[in-house]
């Protein structure tokens, strides 16, 4: 056990010990007066946790073994109550840290240590849909809705405790879990987006759990698991550079459909029919059979099905937003910008814009309008009207666009008065 006094003697450059870093990365020279990096067993340093009253933060490298994390947990327990925990980015409090740790450890327990790296990766990739939801209303027209969440949604434990994260946070959570079960990973960053490279028995595998979040949450086949770099760029199409890398990784292998199904079958993710377990194909299939000639009935039926069959999943706003596009295309609805519009809105009473809801407007046959509000807090999906939207809701204050309902109400009003004039 290293005593606090010995520790200060060893780190003579320290003026006031404010931060401790656990992991292999070094402390930069300008940080040396207040920060120390510890590579050894954190349990050996508990006296510092007990006595360093000036300690404000603990910085933990993303890559950790199961044992080192066990030691870090013990260290954090001994720290002052208001200590903040970070993985280089974002911060969480002690309560969030231990909640996050509980979640991670339960996932680690579910992973068979005998599995191959590919199997472990597949398991964690799929689990992410259950663990977090993409931060709602993030980056609409390059405007961030919640400045506080920018860093926090990238913190491993905060992301898990609040169930909200963005790409870097999702990659960090995966890497942290996988490092505890002995799988080597690397963060791939295009500057606009973050995804992951994993070293496996057969070569390197590229995955993007963020872009798969809606699919893994709704039990659908992952779409961004084991694609080649070129395939990822193809998916970006001509509107995104999310996966464009200056130095694409080498020795990348692709995982074809057959192998992907073998992997998921071997880890018990689905039954002998080798199908993923989403209810969506059945729901949309039934609607197509029941109302073959009436798209509007299919749209109403689909929204009802979300409210009943998928009610438990309505707490994830961004994933609903994505999956609805897929579901609508499966009932042969038009999903172009003219026929489908989705936007985060906030109740006028929500002056801090902390409870985003989602408005979905679908144009069906004969220009019939379907408008639904998703409230992720109450997991409800309810029909609404232009008047209700005008009276009760706003876009986020950082969104400079005019709410669509204003224009449409104006249009309706002018049409009514024109008709009145014609009648007269």
């Amino acid at each position: 056990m290293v005593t606090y006094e010995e520790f200060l003697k060893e780190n003579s450059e320290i003026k006031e010990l404010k931060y401790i870093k656990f992991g292999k990365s070094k402390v930069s020279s300008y940080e040396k007066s207040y920060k120390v990096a510890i590579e050894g067993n954190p349990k050996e340093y508990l006296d510092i946790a007990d006595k360093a009253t000036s300690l404000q933060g603990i910085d933990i490298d993303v890559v950790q073994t199961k044992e080192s994390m066990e030691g870090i947990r013990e260290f954090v327990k001994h720290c002052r109550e208001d200590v903040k925990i970070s993985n280089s980015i974002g911060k969480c409090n002690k309560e969030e840290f231990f909640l996050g740790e509980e979640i991670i450890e339960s996932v680690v327990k579910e992973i068979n240590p005998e599995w191959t790296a590919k199997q472990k990766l597949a398991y964690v990739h799929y689990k992410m849909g259950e663990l977090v939801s993409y931060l709602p209303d993030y980056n609409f027209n390059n405007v961030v809705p919640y400045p506080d969440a920018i860093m926090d949604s990238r913190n491993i434990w905060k992301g898990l405790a609040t169930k909200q994260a963005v790409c870097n946070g999702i990659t960090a959570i995966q890497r942290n879990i996988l490092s505890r079960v002995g799988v080597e990973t690397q963060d791939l960053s295009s500057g606009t987006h973050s995804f992951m490279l994993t070293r496996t028995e057969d070569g390197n595998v590229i995955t993007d759990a963020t872009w798969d979040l809606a699919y893994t949450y709704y039990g659908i086949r992952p779409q961004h698991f084991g694609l080649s770099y070129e395939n990822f760029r193809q998916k970006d199409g001509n509107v995104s550079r999310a996966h464009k890398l200056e130095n694409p990784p080498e020795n990348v292998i692709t995982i074809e459909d057959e192998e992907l199904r073998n992997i998921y079958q071997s880890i018990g993710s689905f039954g002998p029919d080798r199908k993923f377990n989403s209810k969506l194909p059945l729901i949309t299939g039934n609607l197509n059979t029941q109302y073959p000639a009436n798209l509007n009935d299919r749209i109403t039926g689909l929204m009802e099905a979300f409210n009943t069959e998928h009610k438990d999943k309505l707490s994830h706003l961004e994933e609903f937003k994505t999956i609805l596009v897929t579901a609508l295309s499966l009932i042969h609805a038009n999903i172009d910008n003219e026929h489908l519009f989705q936007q985060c809105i906030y109740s006028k009473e929500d002056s801090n814009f902390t409870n985003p809801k989602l408005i979905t407007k679908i144009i069906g046959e004969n220009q019939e309008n379907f408008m639904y509000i998703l409230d992720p807090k109450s997991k409800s999906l309810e029909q609404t009207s232009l008047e209700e939207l005008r009276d009760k809701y706003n876009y986020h204050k950082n969104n400079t666009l005019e709410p669509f309902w204003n224009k449409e109400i104006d249009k309706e009003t002018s049409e009514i008065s024109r008709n009145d004039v014609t009648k007269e």
Partner: protein
Amino acid sequence: MNIKKYYDEVINLLKRMFIKKDIKLLEEPKDTENKAVNFSAKENSVSDFELQLKRSANPNICDGNGFGIVKITKLEDIY
């Protein structure tokens, strides 16, 4: 001749006024909210003007989570 000189001076004055304005616009944002906006812009920004134009044509596009970019339309991709 005098009129041309006068005219040039007015033009130069106007130019100076506009240049000053440009410098003002490029100043670092002061409040935290604007800094946050810049952080976001960094995560999702693209330098290519044409690309930006395509993205702005569809306000739903958020490539952080792939929304508006990847669309599954075939049943076999789901199972």
